[in-house]
């Protein structure tokens, strides 16, 4: 089982690297560029060119492959440790990576925007590479973490939220780059803005669920549901930034770049929350 865990993790990494290379190649290659010129927006509406473009199809296949391998690795690890991926940074990172790949595939299937897919793959790859640098030893659960069901849901909700937010970050930063530096008219970027918006609609309730389940666990384990622990506070800040986006979007003066930049800010807050336990102590100080 331990062999299977590390082997499928390696396979996932390789598939992800291949997929990233193919995706990036698809963005810069002449074929990719032509497709971009035809479509008003990056990759939008180029379903036809995707069918003729072998690289596009096989990069998706590689991504599916990576997702399967990662699932296998997580399942194998869970069968050894007897619990979900929530006991240390290595397990979180692999789970987070799984969430990003799943979200990337979902949005690829729904919207077929190459740039977003490429950014999703690159973020997932960065995270998996990071996971590789972390100690992955199987350590028995400390008593406070022996709350398997609640914690599994807590981490699963975080996986969905963070995964979709990563895609939102891809769409939002693409929007900003094209709007600010390439002077693309706002009208033709509407599909990108729509994806970014959809992402928040999908992710936000899950982010809320993550925080509530975390509070519930804190209440059971530490005797208080909220204690302004840095990790708690920074998850609240993340939640507030996305809440701000949802409100900003309906304001006339905030439409477009201004509200979209809140999504970028939101994802930076996600990263801050995620890696926070390295720079501030607190009760979430797992290695």
């Amino acid at each position: 089982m331990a062999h299977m865990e590390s082997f499928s993790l390696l396979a996932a990494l390789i598939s992800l690297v291949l997929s990233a290379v193919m995706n990036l190649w698809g963005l810069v290659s002449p074929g990719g560029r032509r497709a971009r010129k035809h479509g008003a927006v990056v990759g939008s509406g180029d379903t036809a060119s995707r069918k003729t473009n072998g690289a596009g199809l096989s990069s998706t296949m590689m991504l599916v492959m990576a997702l399967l391998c990662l699932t296998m690795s997580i399942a194998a690890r869970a069968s050894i440790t007897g619990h979900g991926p929530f006991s240390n940074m290595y397990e979180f990172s692999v789970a987070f990576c799984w969430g990003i790949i799943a979200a990337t595939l979902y949005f690829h299937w729904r919207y077929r925007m190459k740039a977003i897919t490429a950014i999703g793959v690159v973020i997932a790859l960065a995270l998996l590479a990071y996971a590789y640098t972390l100690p992955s030893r199987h350590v028995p659960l400390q008593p406070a973490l022996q709350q398997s069901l609640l914690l599994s849901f807590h981490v699963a909700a975080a996986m969905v939220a963070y995964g979709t937010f990563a895609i939102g970050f891809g769409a939002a930063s693409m929007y900003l780059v094209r709007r600010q530096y390439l002077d693309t008219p706002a009208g033709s970027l509407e599909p990108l803005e729509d994806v970014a918006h959809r992402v928040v609609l999908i992710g936000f309730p899950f982010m809320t669920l993550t925080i509530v389940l975390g509070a519930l666990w804190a209440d059971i384990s530490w005797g208080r549901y909220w204690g302004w622990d840095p990790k708690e506070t920074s998850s609240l800040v993340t939640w507030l930034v996305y809440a701000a986006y949802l409100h900003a979007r309906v304001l006339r003066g905030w439409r477009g770049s201004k509200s979209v930049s809140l999504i970028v800010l939101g994802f930076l807050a996600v990263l801050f929350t995620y890696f926070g336990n390295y720079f501030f102590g607190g009760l979430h100080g797992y290695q």
Partner: protein
Amino acid sequence: MWHLLTSVKLALSLILAIAVVGLIGIVLDQVPGHPAGQVGGKDRWLETVARPEYGMWTDVLDSLGLFQIFRSPWFLVPVAVLAVSILACSVNRWKQIRGAISGGPVRRSPGFYVDGGSCLQVPFNRASVPDLARGVQDALGRRGFRVRSESSPEGLHIAADKNRFSPIGTYLGHLSLILLILGFILSSCLGFRNVSLVVPEGGMRDVGMGTGLAVSVRSFTAEYWPEGEPKDYRSEVTLYRDGMEVKQGTIRVNHPVSYDGVRFYQSVFGPAVSIMVENPEGEVLFDDVVALSDVLENPPLQRPFGSFTIPGGGVIVYLVGPALDGPDPSFNAGEIGVKLYSDDSAGMFVTDRLQVGTTRELDGLMFTYAEERQFSGLEVSKDPGNAIIWTGSGLLIVGLFAVLYFPHRQIWAIVQEDEIGRGQVCLRGGPTRRSGVAADLEAVSREVQKMISTRDAGRDEGRS
């Protein structure tokens, strides 16, 4: 004023302001938030934690309240204004939500479809108006819409909606935030929290805080995995109220015991010793278990110690155990250090050792170190805001999923016949232009078109 309170701009500014305050609260070290009124505790924290870190800025930051930012006006004022704003918005919205649930008027003026709607002309004789109307209604029904219709001289009006209760979700979501704020205030004002109530095995301690409760730990067990990592901590406890036993239970990590709203959590544990002190006449002066729950810094070793006072004797007894974090060469197995102090500042006058299971005479008193025991550190809390917090959280989640996953959609249609008998269908989606109803609109008009063309095909077949 009302206009300002209900404006999205205000809400947005407040949300962002609270986020910034939160960020400051993360970056700046915060005074640990134990029960209020620990003034000395805060000063000590400022000197030992804040001063080395922030130097001359410490006083400035402290006077601005930034070390307790979540109890300062920086945080409380925007939260309070936000709460008022949420209430105002909810009042404002009530009409709109009632409108959404009832579905609003079915009949709309033709002009309603001109701006923001789209019309489909049906070629002559392809479909009769009643067929067309039925087609539209069926298409809407199949997509899960509730369909209402009304005929008028202008034609047949159709109003369809889906997830009409979803706007209640927005309501719930926002009002639940008020509940969360209320719950939080209740928790911090009426609740209490004692993070370490040290109870030695076999001993009993009062909970205090007006609860009238006392807790005794019958036994404490720590279990370890074969690798040496902690696996489980268990305290078998009995709770008393006014001297009467009211509850027995096992406290484990993640499994608190609660009685009458007071909850007991497993927090820490450590060594304790069972000690008896007699005077030369054989009268027992002291017989209890003493928790060695403090730490004596003796670098590189940290030794646990505890103390008790011999009643009536003016003598304070300190007991020091061997270091917990490594071998302690100064102690033999089963040995503890004992120091006697007089309580009149004369200082220490006896220092010696006690061996478990033996009796020793110190300063004319007989000390019996009967047994090695353990103590259990319990966290005791009462949180009257809890129920409100979980109700609020539940409503928040239900509300958010309802609004964002099952958005309210409306489609209006009018099926008419023009002067020469051709059918015409006009459709318009809502409640707003960007409400994601486009896919439904497209599907309905596609179905109508399909209906027209299949009828067409059927007719062609019939003709041939």
